[in-house]
């Protein structure tokens, strides 16, 4: 179990509180410069946070308080974590096999033993036959496999991956995803993945923490994150297309500029007459040719079909809100949709998720406080 609670204001603001259980793949997602990598480096001991506590497998790795300063800080070598760098960071003067021997240098005194174990790790990564190649003779994907073997050879207590797939072409990436998925079953250690690619996080992670300006905004399983983002900023960061504003009063949501009122259930935390942001998932939208009591009139602005999937840009006649509707190409054909025509959009109010406009965990508030 990895427990991280760190905070600092300089040089980069960071306020993070995450836990990762053995076998879990936890993704840290956020835009460039949001502090994801800083967080990962702090866990590995390559950076120190101003205050906080990092515990792994019951061992205290780092502790610092406002008054006492840094009380405990194990060196990166003592922390026993596997770290995968974006640009692989293999030792260029050593062969693939020797690269994997390096983390075994202190645990296995015999060179032959080291080489034997390193070879096993390379074979497990599916590159046993490349053992004697130099890093410069390997492709990006192969280099990353060597880096994985090197990180795991030490039998680390956690695995930290810093944008490991961003420099790799798409087909190779798919095969690395499979390798990682297979590995995590056997390893049973916490795995932290830093990425700016939401799709990647959605595909691989059990839970995602969204980071913005160094602050962890929400931690949730991918599905929950996409359906119920905690606030407007999270919705924006997770790339929810259909995000609107309205006024919420006692279970009734008014869409700005529209007559339609939706019945929405919330936890009773939002006071009456509060301006809110609201999101709706693709499943909550349907398009019909005929009008109904719950439907909103829309005009079809753009229609693009990509194989079996169609993306339709709609605009409401009242309020002029842009809505994106994704449907199957067959559905589009059934409705015989054409650009410039009027259709009726039905919104399932049960799938509406409302949230405060100003994030509760607003990074601006953090900056003001520090």
């Amino acid at each position, binding site marked *: 179990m990895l427990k991280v609670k760190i905070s600092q204001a300089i040089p980069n603001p960071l306020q993070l509180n995450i836990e990762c259980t053995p076998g879990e793949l936890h993704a840290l997602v956020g835009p460039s410069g949001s502090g994801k990598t800083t967080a990962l480096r702090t866990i*590995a*001991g*390559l950076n120190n946070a101003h205050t906080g506590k990092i515990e792994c497998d019951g061992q205290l790795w780092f502790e610092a308080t406002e008054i006492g300063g840094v009380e405990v800080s194990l*060196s*990166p*070598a003592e*922390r*026993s*974590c*596997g*770290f995968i*760098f974006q*640009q692989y*960071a*293999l*030792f*260029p*003067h*050593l062969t693939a096999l*020797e690269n994997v*021997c*390096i*983390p075994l*240098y*202190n*645990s296995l005194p015999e*060179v032959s033993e*080291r080489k034997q174990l390193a070879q096993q790790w390379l074979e497990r990564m599916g590159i046993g036959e490349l053992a004697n190649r130099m890093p410069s003779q390997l492709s990006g994907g192969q280099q990353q496999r060597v*880096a994985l073997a*090197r*990180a795991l050879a*030490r039998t680390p207590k956690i695995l930290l991956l810093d944008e490991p797939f961003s420099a790799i072409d798409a087909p190779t990436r798919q095969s690395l995803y499979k390798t990682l998925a297979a590995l995590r079953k056997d390893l049973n250690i916490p795995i932290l993945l830093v990425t700016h690619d939401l799709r990647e996080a959605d595909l691989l992670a059990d839970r995602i923490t969204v980071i913005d300006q160094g602050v962890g905004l929400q931690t949730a399983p991918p599905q929950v994150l996409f359906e119920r983002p905690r606030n407007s900023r999270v919705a924006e960061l997770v790339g929810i297309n259909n995000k609107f504003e309205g006024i919420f009063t006692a279970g009734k949501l008014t869409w700005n500029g529209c007559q339609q009122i939706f019945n929405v259930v919330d936890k009773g935390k939002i006071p009456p007459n509060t301006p809110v942001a609201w999101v709706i998932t693709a499943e909550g939208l349907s398009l019909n040719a005929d009008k109904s009591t719950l439907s909103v009139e829309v005009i079809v602005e753009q229609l693009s079909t990509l194989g079996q999937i169609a993306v339709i840009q709609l605009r409401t006649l009242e309020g002029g809100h842009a809505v994106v509707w994704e449907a199957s190409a067959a559905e589009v054909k059934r409705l015989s949709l054409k650009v410039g025509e009027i259709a009726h959009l039905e919104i399932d109010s049960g799938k509406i998720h409302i949230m405060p406009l100003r994030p509760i965990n607003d990074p601006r508030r953090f900056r003001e406080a520090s």
Partner: protein
Amino acid sequence: MRKGRSWIEGLLALPLVLPPTVLGYYLLVGLGGKSFFGIPLVFSFTGILIASLIVNLPFAIQPIQRAFESIQPEILESAQVSGLSNWQIFRLIELPLAWRGITSAAVLTFAHTLGEFGVILMVGGAIPGETKTVSIAIYDKVQSFDTTGAGLLSLILLGTSLVAIALSYGVFGRHPSPPKRWEV
């Protein structure tokens, strides 16, 4: 800290710009009357050895420093997270990666030392069999109109310098590898 470092770096680079006779003069004054394990420093081989060392320091330090600086920080960080101690990182990662810079510095410094003139003359005084170097001998031969001798000695120095520069530029194929490749 940074300021102190700049001062030290500047001081070590000083022989690059200082006229050799000026440096030789200060060394003569500074070493005069002192001895090293009973061997007088001025007008002795030990003296010119020390003088050459000081004069050639910047020629060795700069390429070595550049070689160490050109190692990507990520490489060293990955060595840290691989569990190596600082000494092990130096021995197994940094030294082999900087080796090319170190050998090229050694070769260039060797060639440069062979041709040293001003400082050697000031500190060593051109004593035959003791402190008379090839470049001083060439000068002496020209002074005494022995052009054949001067030409021969010049040819030797030219050949040595050529070999040295060819070595450091890797003309003979491979760059020199560490003397004994450490087993990892």
